[in-house]
């Protein structure tokens, strides 16, 4: 029975994703795309922080590496020689950008492998500041303070842009956002499945053991340092992929976007969604990235939130306060995050249907709830 339910769930989600571009406005599509990109980044961070217990506050840096790497690899050098570029085919540029982010993570691995937990958190703070410094100074590569335009993706002759002949499907013009929507969904699916494979297999068990008891992991033959460094590299590659996607949606990369606030919001995502699982990261990413958009659009209707340009708590601030609060509340009252809540509800229902055992409220999550 649970198998059919799972299949039905997946079918519903897939149908929703396919139908969405036909009904949603461009603004919502854009927000949705950002949420997808954020979900990819959050999955990566969840592998590192949730599954392995390594705190990273530098995730925004790897997003930046991915975004600027893509721009540099894909652009042609500007005629006045101010900006450089390699002019590579865009899919190749995207792959190289992800690898570059991985390499950047690898460079940090002497630190990432040896430090643990919150110690690593502060050390990775350095990445944000160093990254910002490099981005604003390496003008030929990054475009300096104002950033650079992003060349649109082109896959087997199919360009993800508005400009060539308007493609109309079922009466809906398919512009850049609609096309990118499917690219983003495919990337998210791939990223999610891969991470799930990692978590459910041998590496995932090793990572969880390192998180739960480092010494026990070492005794059982898990190379702790190598695993930590490896997961750090993997998570930075996820960050890089998210960065590429964000660059494609934004069409302009700006150094200031990749700030400490962005890195903190990724941490908020995985906590709110649920630590250590792919679904948790995705739920958290959608929650955190859609919240400001929802607040901005409905600020007139919401109590306590002032409309844009008026005195009081603005929409962006309200969203930030709310997700800060959500982090605190989730840790205090909802161990396992929103996803944990969902699994617990499902287990509760499943237990109730075969007519019987009195539901005993348990304080500790059951093994099923934890692994679900």
């Amino acid at each position, binding site marked *: 029975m649970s198998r059919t339910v799972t299949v039905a769930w997946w079918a519903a989600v897939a149908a929703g994703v396919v139908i969405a571009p036909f009904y949603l406005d461009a603004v919502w599509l854009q927000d949705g795309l950002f949420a997808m990109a954020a979900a990819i980044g959050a999955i990566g961070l969840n592998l590192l*922080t949730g599954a392995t*217990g*390594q*705190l990273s506050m530098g995730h925004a840096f790897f997003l930046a590496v991915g975004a600027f790497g893509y721009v540099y690899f894909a652009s042609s050098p500007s005629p006045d020689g101010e900006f450089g570029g390699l002019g590579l085919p865009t899919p190749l540029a995207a792959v190289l950008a992800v690898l570059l982010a991985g390499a950047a993570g690898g460079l940090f691995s*002497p*630190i990432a492998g*040896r*430090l643990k*937990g*919150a*110690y690593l*958190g*502060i*050390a990775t*703070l*350095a990445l944000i*500041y*160093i990254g*910002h*410094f*490099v981005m*604003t*100074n390496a003008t030929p590569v990054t475009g300096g303070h104002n950033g650079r335009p992003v060349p649109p993706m082109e896959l087997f002759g199919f360009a993800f842009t508005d400009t060539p002949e308007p493609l109309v499907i079922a009466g809906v013009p398919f512009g850049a956002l609609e096309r990118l929507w499917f690219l983003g969904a495919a990337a998210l699916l791939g990223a999610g499945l891969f991470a799930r494979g990692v978590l459910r297999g041998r590496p995932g068990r090793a990572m969880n053991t390192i*998180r*739960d008891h480092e*010494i026990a992991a070492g*005794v059982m033959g898990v190379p702790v340092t190598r695993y930590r460094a490896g997961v750090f590299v993997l998570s930075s590659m996820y960050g890089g992929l998210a960065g590429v996607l964000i660059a494609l949606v934004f069409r302009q990369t700006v150094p200031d976007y990749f700030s*400490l606030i962005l890195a*903190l919001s990724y*941490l*908020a995502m995985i*906590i709110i969604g649920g*630590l250590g699982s792919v679904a948790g990261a995705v739920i958290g990413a959608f929650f955190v990235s859609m919240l400001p958009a929802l607040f901005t659009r409905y600020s007139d209707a919401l109590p306590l939130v002032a409309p844009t340009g008026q005195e009081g*708590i*603005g929409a962006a*601030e309200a969203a*930030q*306060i709310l*997700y*800060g*609060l*959500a*982090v*605190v509340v989730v*840790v*205090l009252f909802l*161990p396992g995050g929103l996803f944990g809540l969902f699994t617990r509800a499902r287990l509760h229902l499943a237990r109730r249907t075969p007519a019987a055992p009195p539901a005993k409220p348990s304080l500790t999550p059951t093994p099923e709830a934890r692994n679900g």
Partner: protein
Amino acid sequence: MSTFIELLVSGISVGAVYALIALGFVVIFKATEVVNFAHASLLLVGGFVVAKTHPLVGFWPALLLGVAGAAALGALIEFVVIRRANVVSHSVLAIVTIGVDLILVTELTRRIGTDVLALGDPWGSQVLRLGSVNIPVTRIAALVAAGVVITAFLLAFKYTSWGIAMRATAEDAETAALMGVRRGRVSMGAWAVAGALAAVAALFMCVFPTPGLDRNVTAAAMKAFPAAILGGLDSTTGALAGGFVIGITESLVGGYQEELAFLGRGLGDVAPFLVMVVVLLIRPAGLFGTKELARV
């Protein structure tokens, strides 16, 4: 040469302020094993209270209020959040403090807006001249005040029963609890002390030559994190050393940025973090941190 001395003095004085912040950070870590990312917001609260109350009650009472306010906020965070969070991993607690920080900083920066608030300190923009060397009086005041506060803290840490309880908890929390040390009280005390130290630091981060309290103060306070970690998160000596290293580095790199211009603009802001990375490469536990050993 006189530029060098000016920069060095300013670096030492800024370093003393960083040391104050880092010390609070270390105290919290020792007592509760939580890395407190909400530290910048404690600082902001302290500064904000001073800025808002000094026109009403005068500077010194305002400073007292600021210190008390930040200490109370620290204790409140401990009491409401940290004590109740029932989690296994301390990384998760660190992320909770990030949540707290987000809430407080967003609200305070909203209230501050684009203003630059004066703190009403008595030193103003006076400058002390020693030969060809000009030193702002505020820098000397910062050094003296930080020195007094740090000494008082270290003495209390060593000799009072509160300090002994705190050190015992840091050494072995369970045994300390069995000996009758009240852990809740110890950790709340640690948070309050950290808040008070942060408020004093806030005062000196916002006086001349900086224009005043504005929304960027938290960014400046971020530099105390490398100070704490490069000295070693569990070492009070380390916090002091780290603070001075960061302060002097920042001041010298910032002061000679014309000469260092080939490396790029804004190097002064990154230098503390570069120093931290280099130190961590050589000594992963920080300069004075205890290397973690475990018995199996």
